[in-house]
């Protein structure tokens, strides 16, 4: 069983990295199965046994390949993505998912309406409604008008791959409407009757909570009962992550065990009232049987999240083991759960919550028995006599407390490296916070919330009373979470661990757990720790003794963000990108992951060219999450805009105004010149807005980079007037290649060999402007565009210059097969 699971997972992982035509694999599976059957019926059981992992490995390979590299039929939605708006009809095949300010609808498309009539189409799409007012339900048939988009793949190192994320959910196309009234319900009740039944139950609970629980508690209760986290709010969510208690909000083993335990216990207690029953029935088996249905029901009410399903399968396998008189082995149950989930949905392997959920449980069942051995000294003198002197209740409490502490320690250690990998954060207060919050929130609040949910169907007054009590306790919990998240050193930012580091960390953990069991564990542990430290030291040395200057222009859509790596290890970030409505933070989602992936936690120079959101917004996240030494800006925007006020506050005394007239700097052997705006002429208001952008030039040996900000014609003229030599190797084209900028004189004088356009794919502005693009091409500059190339990275030793783009081939997407991971 573990072998087959392992083979299956290997198949899925292999299928993730390379692709073979499915017909080949099918042939392989057929062949292997045929041989299997021959052996099996030829009574060569052992030989047959060897083949089964192979069959499962191939199955996994085939299965994931069909998700990642499907053959789309000719009427698939994916061929409709583009500029044209379509009138579409389809059925909501999942319940709507409300997020903080949006609603996400998963639509299985059925037909499109064209002038000539309607045509059947296939394919799932994710329709984002930009408000939360809808009353749509699972199984509604809806109609709407929207353009269809291909989700963005990752275009920057370390960034999230949305296309792949959705592809694994079998969603290939996205669409947007501004408000819920644009999605018209045509018909109700499509889909599965059982799910409707569940959805009605969920709706009733949801409505009760909307009326009877105050906003801040509502989100928590909904998360604990329905598995919906949309109402919790970003800020609260962040606090839970910092305090390391985020897992309590995602329905998992803790919650499922609580439900099972409750019904198991209640049944046990009831049966015990009738001793004659005890002689006939097996108490545990009967109670186990009684717990089965509520556990399954809860999983459905909770929205079938991966962690919840994993826990339920594990729980059911325990209960089943009890019913079948089998030795309940935790590993068997865990592997069984993993196997079943992956058979149903192999993509779950790449789901973060799947990984966390399994790793946490694996760590708990692997580490706890081993950790306990380290406390065996309690059985020896002088501790033994002390332990024996304690009253029984005191020992009971002590045992309970230490069990809780051990469990949370095991889970934190087991998931820690992965938390670092995904969230770049290690919560240090987690050990302490879990100790308080698991009993309070994980048990008390969860139990109360679940009982409330149950009572909603039987007695509203009682449900209200419970809610009041629950809200009171939630307030205490939230207070504690707030307190823990505010503690100094509550959490530590960490850079993204590499694969090798993850292997080393887990290797060290396993060895550390087995110090008492394996003779060579200690030298092994010291060895691995040595390698780990050596790797860190080498990485540090390599960064600080480099001979090359690296400049990366990141793809932040419509906006600018560039990262400069100086030869001696300094980091400069020039602008951080930003989105018009502020809903997507490129600082958090693109620039920070890029830096963490590059193993950097420190920014030496944080530069804001001008305080427009598409340049400034992302810098705020960097300011609060990185060690920033110096902050430079163009001196504009002290008063205007909340964004720039926050920026100035966060920067504090680190802030310096830069501009023409500032002495040139040397960082390493890189010369830094400030070409614009003129310092000290601010009051004249000659240069404002885009025209006041800070323009910087870096020169390293024979290679130079000119960062043009958003300057327009007037500022370009001023720059040309004041600068003698303007020629630069690489130019960040001013104002995203818009017509307002890049005057022929400017282009002629800068004469870049490479022109970098920071533009958004499918953006409204249709940048770069064709005339501007042509101007650069005419002088022989090679254009690079962030919308097509992704992140564009230049590496130079002062003489030679290499260019690397994140998206390798520039070819667009043709019809037919779509590469889903680029």
């Amino acid at each position, binding site marked *: 069983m573990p072998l087959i699971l392992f083979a299956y997972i290997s198949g899925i992982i292999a299928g993730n990295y390379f692709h073979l035509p499915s017909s080949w694999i099918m042939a392989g599976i057929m062949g292997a199965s045929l041989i299997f059957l021959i052996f099996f019926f030829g009574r060569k059981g052992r030989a047959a046994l060897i083949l089964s992992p192979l069959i499962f490995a191939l199955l996994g390979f085939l299965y994931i390949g069909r998700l990642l590299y499907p053959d789309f039929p000719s009427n698939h939605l994916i061929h409709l993505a583009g500029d044209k708006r379509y009138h579409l009809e389809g059925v909501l095949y999942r319940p709507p998912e409300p997020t903080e300010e949006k609603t996400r609808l998963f639509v299985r498309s059925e037909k499109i309406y064209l002038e000539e009539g309607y045509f059947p189409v296939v394919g799932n799409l994710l329709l984002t409604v930009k408000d939360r007012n809808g009353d749509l339900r699972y199984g509604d048939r809806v109609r709407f008008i929207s353009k269809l988009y291909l989700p963005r793949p990752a275009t920057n190192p370390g960034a999230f791959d949305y296309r792949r994320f959705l592809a694994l959910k079998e969603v290939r196309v996205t669409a947007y409407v501004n408000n819920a009234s644009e999605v018209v319900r045509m018909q109700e009740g499509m889909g599965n009757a059982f799910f409707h039944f569940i959805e009605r139950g969920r709706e009733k609970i949801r409505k009760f909570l909307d009326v009877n629980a105050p906003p801040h508690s509502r989100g928590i209760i909904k998360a604990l009962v329905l598995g919906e986290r949309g109402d919790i709010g970003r800020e609260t969510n962040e606090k839970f992550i910092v305090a390391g208690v985020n897992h309590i909000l995602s329905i998992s083993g803790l919650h499922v065990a609580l439900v099972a335990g409750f019904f198991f216990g209640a049944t046990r207690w009831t049966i*015990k009232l009738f*001793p004659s029953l*005890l*002689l006939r029935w097996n*108490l*545990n088996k009967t109670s186990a049987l009684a717990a089965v249905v509520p556990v399954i029901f809860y999983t459905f009410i909770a929205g079938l999240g991966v962690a919840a399903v994993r826990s339920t399968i594990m729980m059911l396998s325990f209960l089943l083991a009890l019913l079948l*008189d*089998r*030795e309940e082995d935790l590993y*068997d149950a865990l592997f069984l759960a993993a196997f079943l989930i992956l058979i149903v949905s192999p993509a779950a392997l790449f789901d973060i919550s799947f990984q966390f959920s399994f790793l946490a449980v694996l760590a708990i069942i692997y580490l706890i028995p081993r950790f306990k051995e380290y406390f065996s000294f309690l059985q020896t003198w002088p501790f033994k006599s002390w332990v024996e002197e304690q009253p029984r209740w005191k020992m009971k409490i002590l045992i309970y407390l230490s069990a809780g502490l051990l469990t949370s320690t095991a889970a934190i250690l087991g998931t820690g490296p992965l938390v670092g990998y995904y969230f770049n954060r290690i919560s240090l207060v987690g050990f302490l916070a879990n100790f308080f919050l698991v009993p309070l929130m994980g048990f008390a609040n969860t139990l109360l919330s679940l009982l409330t949910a149950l009572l909603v169907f039987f007695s509203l007054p009682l449900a209200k009373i419970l809610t009041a009590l629950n809200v009171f306790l939630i307030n205490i919990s939230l207070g504690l979470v707030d307190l823990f998240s505010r503690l100094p050193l509550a959490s530590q930012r960490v850079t993204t661990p590499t694969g090798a580091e993850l292997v080393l960390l887990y290797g060290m953990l396993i060895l550390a757990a087995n110090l008492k069991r394996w003779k060579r564990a200690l030298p092994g542990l010291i060895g691995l720790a040595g390698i780990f430290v050596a790797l860190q030291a080498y990485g540090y040395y390599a960064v600080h003794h480099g001979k090359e200057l690296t400049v990366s222009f990141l793809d932040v859509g419509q906006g600018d963000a560039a990262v400069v790596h100086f030869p001696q290890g300094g980091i400069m970030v020039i602008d951080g990108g930003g989105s018009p409505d502020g809903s997507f933070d490129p600082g958090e989602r693109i620039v920070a992951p890029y830096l963490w992936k590059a193993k950097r936690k420190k920014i030496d120079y944080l530069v804001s060219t001008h305080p427009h959101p598409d340049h400034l917004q992302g810098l705020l996240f960097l300011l609060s999450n990185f060690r920033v030494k110096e902050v430079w800006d163009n001196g504009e925007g002290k008063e205007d805009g909340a964004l720039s006020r926050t920026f100035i506050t966060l920067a504090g005394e680190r802030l310096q105004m830069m501009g023409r007239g500032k002495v040139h700097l040397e960082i390493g052997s890189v010369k830094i010149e400030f070409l614009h705006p003129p310092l000290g002429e601010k009051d004249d208001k000659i240069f404002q807005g885009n025209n006041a952008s800070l323009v910087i030039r870096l020169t390293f040996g024979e290679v130079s980079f000119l960062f043009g900000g958003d300057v327009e014609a007037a500022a370009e003229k001023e720059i040309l007037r004041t600068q003698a030599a303007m020629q630069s190797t690489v130019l960040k084209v001013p104002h995203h290649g818009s017509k307002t900028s890049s005057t022929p004189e400017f282009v002629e004088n800068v004469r870049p060999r490479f022109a970098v356009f920071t533009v958004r794919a499918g953006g409204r502005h249709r940048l770069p402007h064709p005339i501007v693009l042509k101007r650069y091409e005419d002088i022989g500059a090679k254009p690079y565009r962030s919308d097509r190339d992704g992140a564009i990275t230049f590496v130079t030793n002062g003489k030679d210059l290499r260019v690397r783009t994140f998206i390798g081939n520039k070819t667009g997407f043709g019809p037919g097969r779509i590469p889903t991971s680029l």
Partner: protein
Amino acid sequence: MGSFWHALIEFFFPPRCPFCGINLAGSGASRPCSSCLSEIKFFAHPRCPRCGLGFYTVSGEDHLCSGCLSEEWDFARARSLGPYEGLMIEIISRFKFKGATRLAKPLGALLAEYKDPDFSFSEFDLILSVPLHPKRLKQRGFNQSLLLARRVSQAFSIPLDFKSLQRIRHTLPQTELSGPERKKNIRGAFEVKENRSISGKRLLLVDDVFTTGATVQECSKVLLKAGAKQVDILTLARVV
């Protein structure tokens, strides 16, 4: 179909040794592994024909032990699989005190496999188990002796009776007392509710551990008084 189910269950719940948990995939299910079996000691001859106690001497004739020479037993014979030692203590305590009721199956199977030239299961008309007081039953949730007895009853298709013999007095746990105290503690604790069902029958009384014999002696006494023809005792282990 049956074998398919069996294979499916084996796949998801690989058979494990019920005692040590080692994976036994491929071999027969729910049987203890050979290393556990070799760790359990079984009585052999010579032994006391009355109370079944095995002697340490390797050879010689069976003969009454010193206890049986001085003690008056009401039961005909008592038999135990082996001494209450080592692994047996651990397994029984898991079974009895930690609620591992699934151990009833392998332990019951061990009982049913008990072989002795002068002890045959076919001579019994009815199987009984040492009852628990309702209070204790509520506390523990099951009667370990009944679970064992049920297995034996199923193995030989001998009827099982868990109603006739009852414990009417809540006594201190025997495990906390010494020999003479035990006798006193248990006196008058049992009662036969239904004489009809046992009168004239040959009974096998099953219990988990034979310590001083006080409990089974007391049971035998009331059973014989109620008209049973003969009472024999079978336990997993006995204290030596």
